[in-house]
């Protein structure tokens, strides 16, 4: 088993636990923005897509990489955008009066 695999597994398990503990605390009020925000964060796969595209190895990998950049970057832009739009709408009774 490659050493990289083991260190990645450590990271995966620890990040999973951190995620579990943090997400448990998110109020059900914000479950929709939670899903769109984690989606936008997940769109960080765009960095891998950029590398595949920019390494310019074969025509196939450039095509696949380009599509992957489009798909993930649109998720990133749209995900942050809509999450912020949703969160701006959440107002408490007090802040509404003031």
């Amino acid at each position: 088993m490659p050493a990289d695999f083991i260190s990645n597994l450590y990271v995966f398990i620890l990040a999973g636990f951190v995620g579990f503990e943090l997400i448990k605390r998110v109020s059900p009020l914000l479950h929709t923005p939670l899903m769109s925000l984690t989606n936008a964060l997940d769109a960080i796969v765009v960095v891998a897509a950029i590398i595949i595209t920019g390494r310019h190895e074969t025509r196939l990998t450039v095509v696949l990489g380009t599509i992957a950049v489009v798909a993930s970057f649109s998720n990133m832009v749209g995900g942050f955008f809509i999450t912020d739009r949703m969160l701006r709408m959440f107002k408490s009774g007090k802040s509404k009066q003031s």
Partner: protein
Amino acid sequence: MNTLALQQYLDFTYIAAVVLFILAIKWLSSPVSARRGVLAGEIASAMAIAATLFNPDLVHYKWIVIALILGAGVGIPLGMVKMTAVPQRTALSHAFGALSAALIGIAEYYVGTAPVSRFQMGEIGLEVIIGSLTFTGSLIAAGKLQEILPQRPIVYRGQNIVSLSVLGGALGLAVALVFNPANTFLFPIMIVVALTFGVLLVTPIGGADMPTVISLLNSYAGFSAALLGFVLNSKVLVVAGALDGSSGFILSVIMCKAMNRSFTNVMFGAFGQVATGPAAAQEARPVKSASPEEAAEILGAASKVVIVPGYGMAVAQAQHKVRELYDLLTKRGIDVQFAIHPVAGRMPGHMNVLLAEADVPYDHLKEMDDINGDFPQTDVSLIIGANDVTNPAAKTDKSSPIYGMPVLDVERSHTVMVIKRSMNPGFAGIDNPLYYLDQTLMLFGDAKAFVSNIVKEFSNSHG
């Protein structure tokens, strides 16, 4: 700058991005700090992309720039959709996320520089299977939510056996590839089989189960990104994927609990099929109905009102009219709260977003457990487009398909008013005994039209 030092700068940027990702989710826990969370996520993503552009492996930028511009062009309109379209947009974004993870895995397999080892083949195989099935599954879910595809469950005999054999086929091909990664002709077949499985997986699932399915697809999309991180040895992907995956997983568990069902039951149960028989056989029982004038009068005399919104409110786009009613009642000194069931609507938190859009203050949106104790002191419960989540049979009738599902105790309030198009049971086909109770009044009509008639009554009679 030599390459090694540059690589270290890149690594530190990724580490900073990971820290900001975690803070982003931490800040999202409360509506007060949530927008800061979005900002943290944006900064982290921008940093990571900027750093990646300095990666010395990149030799050609043309297609990167074109793809980034196209991606922004697709993403911005998708970020501007109406709040009622958020469930299908979310399903579509799961599809995009899974697609890009799958495509990168596929490209990694075909990169000719070094032959893939058996171990890598296993990682790539699993990653591409999960990414592909999530891609087509999410597209089907988005199609159902957009009502391009029928929302009812589509089932046939032996369906589960067929679906599971297809999944087994995809996994079998992956195993064959692990034994001999050079069998390149098997790889595209495996992808097609996995894509097919995604279609088979979601097609039989009905609209009412969408909150669970969307959450589950969310977690698949996250885990496929994490697996891709394993393939590429990229820790930033492992962390982002693990966060997204665990978020989807937790949400699916919450959704399943809120319906008292197991994962297997949601995925393979084809909800509602059992119920059609007995519900159809039921004879028409008498119900009491009321006009908008009567409803307005009863609401005006109340001192505590609980509004229960459901998917029907979203379909009728009634949320703004509901907020007008909320304003009128609140102005008269009536205490108005909203009771939000976890699976009301088509995705987790759907109702909260719609009502927040309509300017209802979020401190009046109450979770089921927080409001269930209030119903005995409630004068009027007004149910708008919700059905199963108010069904008292879930507590008493062991033969009911939703027996054991936690529901809102609306029948404990003095008066129950239900806005509903007709007495037809929903597509789940489950009869709701609530409608035949003595204190229940049925308000027949379109949710938006009926609420605006009530609002009109108030403005006519009370200035």
